[in-house]
């Protein structure tokens, strides 16, 4: 028993620490971007165009990950791109979580007409292809950071709503929820103090996952040039530009791809790790 629990704990620990480490690096890069970045991410220098990364022949010292076709430093652009990625992840992730979880809790606990309206809305929402939905939405409300965040919240709240509703339905059947009602607690109080704490681990895991998804959606929107204005470096924008010169300078495409991949993976793993930590039975 103790051994089993210890093993579970160790595994969750490694996953939590590794993903946490990468996310911390990204967060530091985002916060201190102007101090860390070796070059101005926007400075073009056509003489230094398409320099390869440091281990290849023809590399220039000071340009660790090479330059793109306009001579901009890839590493500096990655570091600055982390800012947009993290802002989108945090704001869109939290917004999605708040709206979706609240509606899910209400639908799952109060049932009745509230549940019918919310559940039908979710069904209808999920029938739209999400990225197309986002593109349409941005076409209507215009590009920019706020629009990207709004678009992500609008298309993705259903993810939280469905899962939280299902969990809440489960919890509502529990004897301790009945007992709280018998003891005289109001429905609101019962929902917040008896049900919410038990749904919270799931919400935390979903929130982290959602942050990763927000980063991907932002990258996709950047890729189709519907995100932030083009002079600000974003990972999605870098991937789009890198695609054009893939045969001459693969590194312009590959480094932002790897960064994106690691970040999204870390968000998902971090959430799973946190869920285990939050769960009183596994803790």
């Amino acid at each position, binding site marked *: 028993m103790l051994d089993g629990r210890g093993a579970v704990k160790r595994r969750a620990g490694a996953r939590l620490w590794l993903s946490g480490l990468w996310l911390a690096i990204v967060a530091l890069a985002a916060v201190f971007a102007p101090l860390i970045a070796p070059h101005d991410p926007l400075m073009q220098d056509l003489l230094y165009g398409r320099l390869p990364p440091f281990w290849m022949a023809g590399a220039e010292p000071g340009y660790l990950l090479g330059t793109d076709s306009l001579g901009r430093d890839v590493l500096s652009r990655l570091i600055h791109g982390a800012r947009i990625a993290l802002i989108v992840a945090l704001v869109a992730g939290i917004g999605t979580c708040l709206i979706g979880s609240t509606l899910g809790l209400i639908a799952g606990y109060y049932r009745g007409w509230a549940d019918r309206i919310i559940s039908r809305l979710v069904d209808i929402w999920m029938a739209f292809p999400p990225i197309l939905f986002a593109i349409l939405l941005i076409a209507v409300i215009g590009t920019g950071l706020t629009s990207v965040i709004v678009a992500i919240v609008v298309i993705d709240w259903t993810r939280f709503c469905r899962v939280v509703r299902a969990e809440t339905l489960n919890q509502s059947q*529990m*004897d*301790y929820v*009945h*007992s709280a*009602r*018998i*003891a*005289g*607690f109001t429905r609101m*109080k019962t929902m917040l*103090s*008896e049900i919410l*704490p*038990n749904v*919270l681990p799931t919400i935390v895991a979903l929130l982290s996952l959602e942050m990763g998804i927000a980063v991907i959606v932002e990258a996709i929107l950047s890729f189709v040039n519907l995100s932030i204005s083009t002079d600000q470096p974003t990972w999605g924008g870098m991937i789009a530009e890198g695609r054009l010169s893939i045969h001459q300078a693969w590194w312009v495409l590959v480094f932002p791809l790897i960064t994106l991949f690691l970040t999204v993976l870390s968000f998902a793993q971090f959430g799973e790790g946190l869920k285990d930590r939050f769960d*009183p*039975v596994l803790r």
Partner: protein
Amino acid sequence: MSGGYLTIRNLSAVLRDTGERVLRSVDIDLQPGTIRGLVGESGAGKSMIGKAVLGVLPKALKVVEGEILIDGQDLLKLKDADRRRLIGASTALIPQDPLTALNPSHRIGPQITNRLVDILGWTRRAAEVRALEVLEEVQIADAARVMRQYPHELSGGMRQRILIASAFAAEPKLIIADEPTTALDVTVQKQILKLISNLQARHGTALLFVTHDLGVVAKICDSLSVLYGGKVVEDTDVASFFNGPHHAYGRALLAATPRHTDPDASLLPVPDDVIAAVRAELGEADRQWVRHD
């Protein structure tokens, strides 16, 4: 007998969809300081009576007539908020399954004290002192430490004792015990029963004990109601029931109870003709009831 602490008169409940009767003009009288057993097979409606009193009937059921009097006040005539205040202050439940009756996210202490503080207006300090007291009453060693633990750190028997402590914490006048020993080991069952009857006697609580186990009834109850199909077919005190039930179904149920004095005897089912007779009785009652309506 009348004027008990809990009096249920002529209580009928139907399924909302089909209108089928689930409780059939139930009369139950529970005197202060006594234990009444509520006995019946699965589906006889014994748990439903407890739920009706506590106001947590499933949404599919609807009470269509009758009175549930607690201390002379009819619960069914009170406004929802008043009813919940009265129930919250005077009544407690000992639930069936100790594994789902404690919230896994909260420590034991707050699960006992929150109700005293938030609903009954005690100070946090007084509530904690009281919680320690009742935990010691149910023989939990090192109660102060247990109050800081989470439910999953404790055994099923421990949790059931905590739920019993919690039920008695606010000195309720009425406790409804819904098969509190069914989910436990036989050895633990005995201790829990003894604990419940000791506490009940010490606090003078009226206890409605829902069970399907006549052995349990014989051990701790003063009176009992036998239910079949949502109808009380026998309402008597324990001594006269075990000396010779009046109703054929009661006799058959008693005969069907396995006895450890004769372990080789085969188990007797309730005979078909007895079931048929009870069913006919229910059908007749329903016909008359519809005419009254």
